[in-house]
């Protein structure tokens, strides 16, 4: 009791000392566009105290009364200095000037040099770099840029899916302005749903997750979209090999209300339309209209009530659509109509309010859905009889959520975040409908059958503190408490998080972190390709939540301000992971899915190296990952591989990625990437035998994933030619995917044809590799005004 009284007395004394202090708070934004800057550094050179701006560009810094020399910096912008005699709380809103020579400024979302942050296993990817990376068909892609980072692996050739530190593709939480997005793929995974033109910042967390994140085991990808220029209207229009894009931003009411809208659509179907109509005419069909396209629409409106209060409405919708309308010239007026739509819709309304200079609130209401709808209709009408039959299939997931989060800085050394959220999930596994209307009323029907909706409720409460213990030692600790209620079952989870940083010198730091994550939903998919039929399903009374423990430690070095070097070690243990039973397939139906999966464990460990340069004419990074990822399913009745450990599908020993971008001048910049990775594993039955009792021919598999495909490597290059025109900047981009035309393995299979190997030995069958993309050149044109 005596100790407690002493402790409280000391605590009050400390806080009393801070009674002699005052708070400087405000917003840091770009002067040219008014766009707020995330993670800008605000630093008092007298006291040595500092803070970072939050996701809304706000900062709060409590300092002792007296002289303050404030330094506010952000990569790509001129550093701002101000000397203040601090005698009372003060609001200071700063607009930083661009340090680049280009008239049009692209905001770069770099943080302070990563070695100073207490966060480990997180990477900010500058949007400028994402746009500069040469990619397939010249279409900038956030997820494909992330695949070039250490600890992040791509799936198969050309796909956007990411596999982070041994986790599965459904273990990534994709947040678009803080709202989850369930399906991030277009065209079977060849393109992601994120339009780079609409994005302000991209941060990937691979481990040591801050306590305000939760819900997935392996990664959090936090994407913030642009608010819009508050001075005047700007835009960007571009056309590439497969898609056209338009981005517009500007003030609706100057300095108060801004908008930003981006639209992207593929146009291959429009180009093909004349050919399809010609084929239709040859086949004696009447009007024929069929095709495929995908689109993305991002829209955001921000209204500033005052410097302390903002309201933000944001919207995203992105669909893939296959459509067909065929009318036959056969005298029966037969026609067929097919519609196959799948995609996301996300809407959110946020209110940011600074309650006091030390307390900032972010209140969000959101709706997100992923849907997969198929409808097929047939109509026949010969003037006497008619019938109109329509079959439909629907599946998807919908979330309605509310979240409140607070940033609180009670004293300069503590930055506290706390809050909570509640989500109502509606899972709709599969519903089929059948409807017929005909001239014979007795044959009419209208019925719906299939699995009913599953409702689930999820909540979370979190608190975390970023604590500068000493000048050199910083800690970030917190806890996320979650609960998930479904079908009468309730799964609670307390998830502690801790990370720390110790500065060994001004340029060198060591960091370590631990996180515990829980996941309450799974995506059913067992193909290398992202299919629209991939379903999200909740945990059930039989299928328990997945959870993971992860520890990471690393060394971080800032090389003379030129580049950041880092090395991280990690170990991740995952429980209750799902794998499909031998022979199970979800193609076509998810009925009885619980019977088709096994629950087991997984673990992954490795080391990651990253050398990253974010400033200057030459930017880019070199990443290397050495890793092992294993699975083990040894529970009674749920064994895979006889219960023995086996390598996970995307277990790769080596991953190397080199990305470089060089800006010669304001008119020309070039970029190149080279990637190398060990081949994916697959299962190959090396021996075959015959069962003479049952006349079975059996291919014997000794171990699952026992075969490693040939290594993957590829080089892409790109060059951009910019030219200042009267009304803006024209950019002509040329890129080449797979420059040296490497035939990389997409899949490997046994082909029953006679084959002679290099030594002339004859085989009755051959192992054949299928490759997808040869050398592919792309050209795009854009105009920024």
């Amino acid at each position, binding site marked *: 009791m005596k100790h407690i009284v002493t402790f409280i007395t000391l605590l009050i004394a400390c806080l009393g000392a801070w009674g002699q202090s005052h708070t400087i708070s405000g917003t840091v934004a770009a002067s040219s566009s008014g766009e707020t800057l995330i993670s800008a550094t605000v630093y008092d050179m007298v006291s040595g105290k500092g803070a970072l701006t939050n996701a809304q560009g706000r900062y709060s810094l409590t300092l002792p009364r007296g002289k303050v020399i404030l330094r506010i910096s952000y990569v790509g912008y001129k550093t701002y200095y101000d000397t203040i005699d601090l005698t009372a709380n003060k609001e200071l809103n700063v607009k930083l000037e661009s340090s680049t020579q280009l008239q049009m400024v692209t905001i770069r979302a770099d943080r302070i040099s990563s070695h100073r942050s207490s966060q480990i296993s997180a990477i900010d990817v500058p949007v400028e770099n994402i746009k500069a990376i040469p990619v397939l068909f010249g279409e900038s892609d956030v997820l494909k840029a992330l695949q070039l980072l250490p600890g992040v692996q791509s799936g198969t050739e050309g796909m956007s899916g990411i596999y982070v530190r041994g986790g599965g593709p459904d273990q990534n939480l994709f947040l678009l302005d803080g709202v989850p997005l369930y399906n991030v793929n277009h065209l079977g995974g060849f393109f992601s749903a994120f339009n780079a033109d609409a994005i302000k910042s991209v941060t990937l967390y691979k481990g040591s997750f801050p306590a305000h994140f939760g819900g997935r085991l392996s990664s959090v990808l936090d994407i913030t979209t642009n608010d819009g220029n508050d001075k005047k209207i700007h835009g960007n229009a571009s056309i590439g090999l497969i898609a056209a894009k338009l981005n517009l931003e500007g003030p609706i009411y100057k300095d108060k209300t801004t908008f930003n809208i981006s639209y992207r659509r593929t146009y291959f179907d429009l180009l093909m339309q004349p050919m399809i109509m010609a084929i239709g005419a040859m086949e004696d069909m009447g009007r024929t209209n069929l095709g495929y396209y995908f689109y993305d629409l991002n829209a955001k409106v921000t209204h500033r009530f005052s410097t302390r209060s903002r309201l933000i409405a944001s919207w995203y919708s992105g669909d893939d659509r296959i459509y067909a309308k065929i009318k036959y010239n056969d005298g029966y007026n037969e026609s067929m109509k097919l519609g196959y739509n799948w995609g996301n819709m996300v809407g959110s309304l946020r209110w940011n309010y600074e309650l006091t200079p030390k307390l900032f609130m972010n209140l969000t209401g959101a709706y997100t859905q992923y849907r997969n709808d198929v409808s097929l209709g047939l109509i026949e009408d010969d003037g006497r009889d008619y019938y109109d039959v329509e079959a439909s299939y629907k599946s998807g997931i919908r979330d309605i959520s509310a979240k409140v989060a607070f940033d609180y800085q009670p004293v300069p050394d503590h930055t506290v975040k706390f809050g909570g959220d509640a989500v109502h999930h509606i899972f709709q596994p599969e519903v089929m409908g059948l409807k017929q209307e005909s001239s014979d009323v007795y044959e009419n029907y209208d019925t719906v059958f299939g699995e009913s909706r599953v409702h689930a409720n999820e909540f979370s409460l979190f608190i975390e503190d970023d604590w500068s213990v000493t000048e050199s030692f910083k800690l970030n600790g917190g806890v996320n408490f979650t609960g998930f209620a479904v079908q009468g079952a309730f799964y609670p989870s307390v998830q502690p998080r801790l990370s720390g940083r110790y500065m060994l010198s001004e340029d060198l730091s060591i960091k370590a972190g631990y996180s515990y994550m829980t996941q309450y939903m799974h995506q059913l998919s*067992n*193909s290398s390709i992202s299919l629209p039929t991939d379903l999200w399903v909740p945990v059930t009374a039989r299928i328990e939540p997945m959870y993971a423990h992860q520890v990471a430690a690393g060394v971080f070095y800032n090389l003379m301000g030129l580049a950041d070097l880092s090395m991280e070690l990690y170990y991740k243990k995952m429980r209750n992971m799902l*794998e*499909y*039973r*031998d*022979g*199970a*397939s*979800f*193609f076509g139906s998810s009925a009885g899915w619980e*019977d088709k999966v096994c629950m087991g464990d997984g673990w992954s460990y490795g080391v990651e190296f990253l050398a990253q340069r974010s400033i200057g004419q030459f930017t880019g990074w070199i990443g290397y990952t050495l890793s092992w990822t294993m699975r083990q399913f040894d529970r009674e*009745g749920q064994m895979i*591989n*006889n219960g023995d450990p086996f390598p996970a599908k995307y277990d790769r020993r080596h991953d190397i990625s080199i990305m470089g971008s060089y800006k010669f001048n304001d008119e020309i910049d070039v970029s190149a990437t080279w990637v190398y990775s060990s081949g994916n594993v697959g*299962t*190959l*039955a*090396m*021996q*075959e*035998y*015959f*069962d*003479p*009792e*049952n*006349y*079975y*021919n*059996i*291919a*014997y*598999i000794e*171990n*699952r994933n026992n075969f490693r495909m*040939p290594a993957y490597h590829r080089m892409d290059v790109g060059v951009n030619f910019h030219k200042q025109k009267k009304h803006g900047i024209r950019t002509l981009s040329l890129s*080449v995917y797979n420059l040296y*035309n490497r*035939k990389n393995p997409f899949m*490997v299979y*046994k*082909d*029953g044809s006679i*084959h002679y*190997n290099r030594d002339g030995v004859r*085989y*009755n*069958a*051959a*192992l*054949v*590799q*299928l*490759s*997808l993309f*040869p*050398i*592919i*050149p792309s050209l795009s044109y854009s105009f920024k005004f």
Partner: protein
Amino acid sequence: MRNIKYFTFALLIPLCFNSCKKVIDFDPGEVSPYVVMISRPVNDSLVTVYLSQSVFFLESNDMYSQYRSISGASVQLFVNGTAYNGTYQSSDGNTGMFGHYQFNVRPKAGDSLYVEAVIPGQDEKVTASTRLPMMPKVEILDIWFDTSEYYDVKCRVKFKIKGGDAREFYSVSFFSGNQMYNVDSNTYYWDTTDAMRSHVYFNVNDPVVNTVDVSDIIDVDDGSFSGYTMHFTNDKFINGEHTFTAYMYMYSYSNYLIDYYSIPIWMSVSSMSEELYRYQQSVNDYSNADEFFSEPVQVLCNINGGIGIFGGRSQKTIRIQ
């Protein structure tokens, strides 16, 4: 403009001539074939053991013709500890049987079996063990026919099973024919006048496997009556006994009404050893798997020093009509 044309051509040429398929030179290193042992001892029947060699997957094309029987092995069978020597029987074109080792012993339900094979040129012995489970107790609760369709017959059989073992694994099959054949499984499979039958394998305690669809349950060769599908459900666990219902849909291709009451229908129930059950289940999964969209199937084995199956079962065959 001309330069752009040449440039475009230069880029398109490699695209046109770039094949997306290529044969990989696969070097597996030293690959030795496995010894394959196949044996499914049945109560009160002679025991047969097949020994052969597996084939490297790039060398195989037709496994039937590539069957490599091992003839010079020394094979011993131990039934409850008593040893019996196997004699090699060459392939027999009349019975269709491949070369195998025959043992002059008919084990009983509940017996423990151990087999040991010494293969010439191989240091390691090939061994395996199994047990013939206790005989199943089967009771037909109800049988019901429906001939509402002119050519088709629907049959529903409700029955219950109770085995003697704690872990109950069964196989059930229905078949039809004009005569009952030897219950020795090694002979009836190759009798061309008998029905080919598919078995339903299940574990009464396994909540996962409770509904099974199989094909070609009843197929009589005279062409008058051809079985097609069966639905099999694990109904309820009542008073320590499991009840099941089998629904059969039998289709006739003949032009006359079938006198279905005159057709004898047999039901064969086997209590299976766990290793045999697991093997048969994995073989079923293997044969039903889709090549592209399904997960690969690992056929389970219980042979030390080789691959294959040595699994016992105790079979009871009853006429239900």
